[in-house]
């Protein structure tokens, strides 16, 4: 049969199936737009020529009517639209129950002109003559008390107006009383609320490697790595010994991020995810320049070999300049150092300060500035 709503008697593909009017049966309403009607069975084809609820769901009328409802042109417009989209099906007679002609006429009189303003036509399939007069022999539908003016796809303003649910908490007031922007928590906007704060983020941002919540909670507990592994920024797990070895192992290369740091206590390099000092033996100016450049801090402005204070807390770990450091071109500093032992012959560590190389200067402007005698 042409529509999926045929009875099993038609299921066999018998000749009666070719006659559409034999394929009558009621089916539950599944079109979200019309899930709050005073009836819950429908049958197809409907009064707009759609053959199934699936076709109705993607029809232009199913986006036209909800938008038109926002204008408030007629209180029962949504009810009328649903009697066309998903006509009532009488479970006894298996017949469709149409809207009354007066309902059709009222909706058209009140709302057709609004469509005209935006250059749209009233749906031509819905000619009111086809519907019975109310009070006549044929039963027809009129809105009863309590019929909801808004559909489940709408948000009902405090004032009673209906606006599309997508406009709820979208940051722009659409209700005449702005009530669509009241009490806008994260869930109203289909967002995820950061624990401990009112910050809302898209669910796709959770565990995506970019911290969005205060306290970075959206990137916490995103991976379960073994004891001898470390979690990459994208929550992959990489063996601890590969961390900051100068070669990428995480697919986002985060195992080689922030391996080198400078602070008042000097140069610190991460290796196997632990902090090391750099032994000053064999250190040289090229490595100082590489360090500042790698950190994007410009050029070395001060380099010192500082005697390590044995009283300072924490266990001493030393990295040494790799004998082949100069052959490792294109490698970051951490790839040019090596673990040799926990001793450093001179017991001196590298301390380094960088200064932004001469960026942001405009020497040519000075050129024009020299004084010209008048």
């Amino acid at each position, binding site marked *: 049969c042409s529509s999926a709503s045929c009875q099993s008697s038609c299921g066999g593909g018998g000749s009666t199936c070719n006659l559409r009017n034999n394929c009558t049966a009621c089916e539950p309403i599944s079109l979200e737009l019309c899930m709050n009607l005073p009836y819950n069975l429908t049958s197809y084809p409907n009064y707009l020529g759609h053959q199934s609820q699936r076709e109705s769901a993607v029809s232009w009328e199913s986006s036209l009517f909800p938008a038109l409802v926002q204008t408030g042109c007629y209180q029962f417009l949504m009810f009328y639209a649903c009697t066309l989209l998903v006509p009532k099906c009488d479970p006894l007679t298996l017949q469709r129950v149409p809207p009354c002609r007066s309902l059709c006429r009222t909706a058209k009189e009140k709302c057709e002109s609004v469509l005209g303003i935006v250059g749209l036509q009233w749906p031509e399939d819905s000619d009111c003559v086809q519907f019975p007069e109310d009070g006549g022999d044929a039963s027809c539908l009129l809105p009863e008390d309590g019929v909801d003016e808004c559909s489940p796809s709408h948000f009902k303003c405090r004032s009673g107006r209906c606006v599309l649910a997508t406009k709820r908490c979208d*940051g*722009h007031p659409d209700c005449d009383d702005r009530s669509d922007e009241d009490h806008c928590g994260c869930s109203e906007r289909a967002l995820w609320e950061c624990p401990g704060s009112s910050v809302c983020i898209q669910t796709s941002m959770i565990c995506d490697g*970019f911290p969005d919540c205060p306290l970075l909670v959206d990137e916490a507990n995103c991976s379960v790595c073994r004891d001898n592994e470390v979690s990459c920024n994208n929550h992959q797990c990489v063996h601890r010994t590969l961390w900051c070895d*100068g*070669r*990428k192992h995480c697919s986002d*290369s985060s195992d*080689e*991020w922030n391996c080198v740091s400078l602070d008042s206590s000097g140069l610190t390099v991460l290796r196997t995810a632990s902090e090391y000092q750099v032994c000053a033996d064999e250190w040289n100016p090229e490595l100082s320049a590489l360090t500042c450049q*790698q*950190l*994007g801090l410009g050029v070395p402005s001060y380099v010192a070999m500082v005697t390590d204070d044995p009283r300072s807390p924490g266990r001493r770990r030393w990295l040494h300049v790799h004998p082949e450091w100069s052959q490792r071109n*294109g*490698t*970051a500093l951490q*790839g040019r150092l090596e673990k040799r032992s926990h001793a450093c012959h001179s017991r001196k560590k590298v301390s380094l300060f960088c200064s*932004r190389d*001469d*960026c*942001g*200067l*405009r*020497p*040519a*402007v000075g*050129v*024009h500035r020299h004084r010209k005698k008048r």
Partner: protein
Amino acid sequence: ILGGRVSRRGAWPWQCSLQSGQSGHVCGCVLIARRWALTVAHCFEGRERADLWTVVLGLSNLDHPGVHSQRRGVRSIIVHPRYNRAVVDYDISVVQLDAEVEETLYVRPVCLPRPSQLPTPDSYCYITGWGHMGNRMPFKLQEGAVRIISLSQCQSYFDMKTITPRMLCAGYDAGTVDSCMGDSGGPLVCEGPGGFWTLFGLTSWGSVCFSKVLGPGVYSNVTHFTPWIQQQIYLNTYLVH
């Protein structure tokens, strides 16, 4: 640049022109290191391949590049992974040149802001570019002074858009000085102590600027992206293999 003026040769040595094939100048860009420039992500829409692009520096007159200009190919384009074209958020790209530039009087990098360094609201900074109002493109590099506007005040100009922390606003209520098409990707720079200029914004979007201009321009907030920028340079310099 609306309401701007012709800039002197060498006044903005970090300004570059991002050019593609027959189109010639498409967007502005900013030199931040000998081999690295910044621009905005939306300039590459539909033209993501690096070999389609050329970067020209040391330009004053688009039509007559002159002896001070330097032309480089593009080795790679790194668009921010979170770039959102619908709302023009995370609108930034790092551009790796195919060879280092030679630093001269007319070609020099600008400073990147330090972490959390922001321009002072209501302070005056400069925007530059070869943008236009939909009519004739100026050949000479234009410059204009704009005032930094707070995000909350900026949001009031754009009720249909969200101004995010990745954005920076500058300009005037009446839009008297503003950036326009073709300026995208160009710099918003502010002068700091000692005459050092720092890059705080990249021209990104705004209200229509070819008719009556209303409201300020919106720039990508470079401070927000400095760690990401440094990371991309580091990864593409030291971890290529």
